[in-house]
């Protein structure tokens, strides 16, 4: 396989899904119920960054914005989960996750491959017939062992990036999206927020919930903006049914 090529095509898919100001599309395992009651959740190596969209279309990483966004997003997640009864820890680095570091590394790498498979085969249209009406990917026994060793019931993986053009946000250009079809993406002129999250049930090792968010509005550098993004991404976790649930606002 050539995962890179596969991933390149995914970029196109994400953009094509943007048909409204904010777009999310959740997938969940059959029988999934959002975490509730007393539970412990670990946020694994959250990957949050914010940059400045330059005139040339490049994103200049901004340390201060990134730090602010990280703080606010992580606070928002903790607050949200607490509101549901969950105790949340954030493992900023692999070492902080606890457990066996080599095993944690393997799990994180596997999760990337699983996440990419979910994107490919559920969001991108490369449907696997055996998974047509199922959402069914696992991280295996090692994930269960990790959960037991660290006393966590769920693991949340999160990627969120945002960019702002100095002149304020500009509408995404359709032309930029179409060029993605050639497998090559030209940065749209204007900032955009992209986030995806996956929830792993550490009692079974399975990825039980997945969501992608693309938005042209919001600012995760602010507490309000971060809360809004986190709520759109995570709070509206819908109980699972066969197939995907999608929504745009």
């Amino acid at each position, binding site marked *: *396989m*050539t*995962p890179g*090529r*596969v991933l*390149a*095509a995914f970029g*196109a*898919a994400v953009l*094509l899904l943007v048909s409204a100001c904010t777009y999310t599309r959740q997938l969940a395992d059959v029988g999934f119920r959002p975490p509730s009651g007393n539970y412990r959740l670990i946020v694994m190596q959250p990957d949050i960054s914010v940059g400045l969209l330059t005139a040339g279309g490049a994103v200049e990483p901004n340390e201060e914005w990134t730090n602010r966004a990280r703080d606010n997003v992580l606070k928002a997640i903790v607050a949200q989960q607490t509101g549901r009864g969950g105790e949340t820890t954030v493992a900023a680095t692999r070492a902080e996750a606890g457990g066996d570091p080599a095993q944690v590394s*393997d*799990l994180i*790498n*596997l999760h*990337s*491959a*699983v996440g*990419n*498979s979910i994107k*490919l*085969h559920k969001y*991108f*249209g*490369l*449907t*696997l*017939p*055996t*998974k047509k009406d199922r959402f069914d*990917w*696992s*991280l*295996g*026994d*090692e994930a269960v062992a990790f959960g037991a060793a660290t006393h966590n019931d769920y693991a949340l993986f999160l990627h969120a990036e945002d960019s702002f053009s100095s002149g304020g946000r500009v509408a995404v250009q359709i032309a930029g999206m179409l060029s993605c*079809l*050639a*497998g090559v993406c030209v940065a749209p002129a204007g900032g955009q927020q992209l986030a995806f999250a996956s929830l792993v049930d550490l009692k079974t*090792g399975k990825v039980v919930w997945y969501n992608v968010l693309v938005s042209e509005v919001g600012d995760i550098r602010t507490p309000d903006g971060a809360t809004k993004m986190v709520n759109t991404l995570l709070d509206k976790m819908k109980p699972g049914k066969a197939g995907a649930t999608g929504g745009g606002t």
Partner: protein
Amino acid sequence: MRRLTIVFTTCALLAGCVTGYELVSPATVTVAKNSMRVRPSISWNKAPSGPYDIPQEESWTENGPLLDRLEFIGALPSGQAIAKQRPKDDRKVPVFRADMTPQDLVSMVESYYRIKLDAKIFESTSVKPVTFLGKPGVQFDYNFVSSDEVKRRGRSVFAVVDGKLYLTSLDGAALHYFEAALPEFEAIVASASIP
């Protein structure tokens, strides 16, 4: 052997594009242009063939090729390679030859992984004689790491029959996926015959 290609994946995006994975039901089926007959006991997903495949191959997956892949190559004649390549490629997978030693065949598979699947680390763990398709064959176990950092394991079972190469292999993530598919793979290999 198989790689997903950008041409294929972008095609899947466009409306009206019909190629995609097909369901393989748990029943006796012929594979790789009817060169072998096998009996899967669970459903599989058969990948569409594309410009990067050789005519004699067929590829299945359970959870997606990033996680597990089952490959068939059947009746590959002497002088052809197990992967599509151009004569002027800098790095070339050695072609199959009917008089190859077991070590030649093993190193052919290893070169394939290093050249086509970008394996940066590749380790042979076992090479032993087995019976495949009712003939003397080789079972080759290995593990590898490609640049996506995921540790993977693989098993290739192959035999030369009437001067042609027949090969079935499973590779997948060392964590969970390879082991989950292995029993089914072993059953498929045991069931394999030349029609």
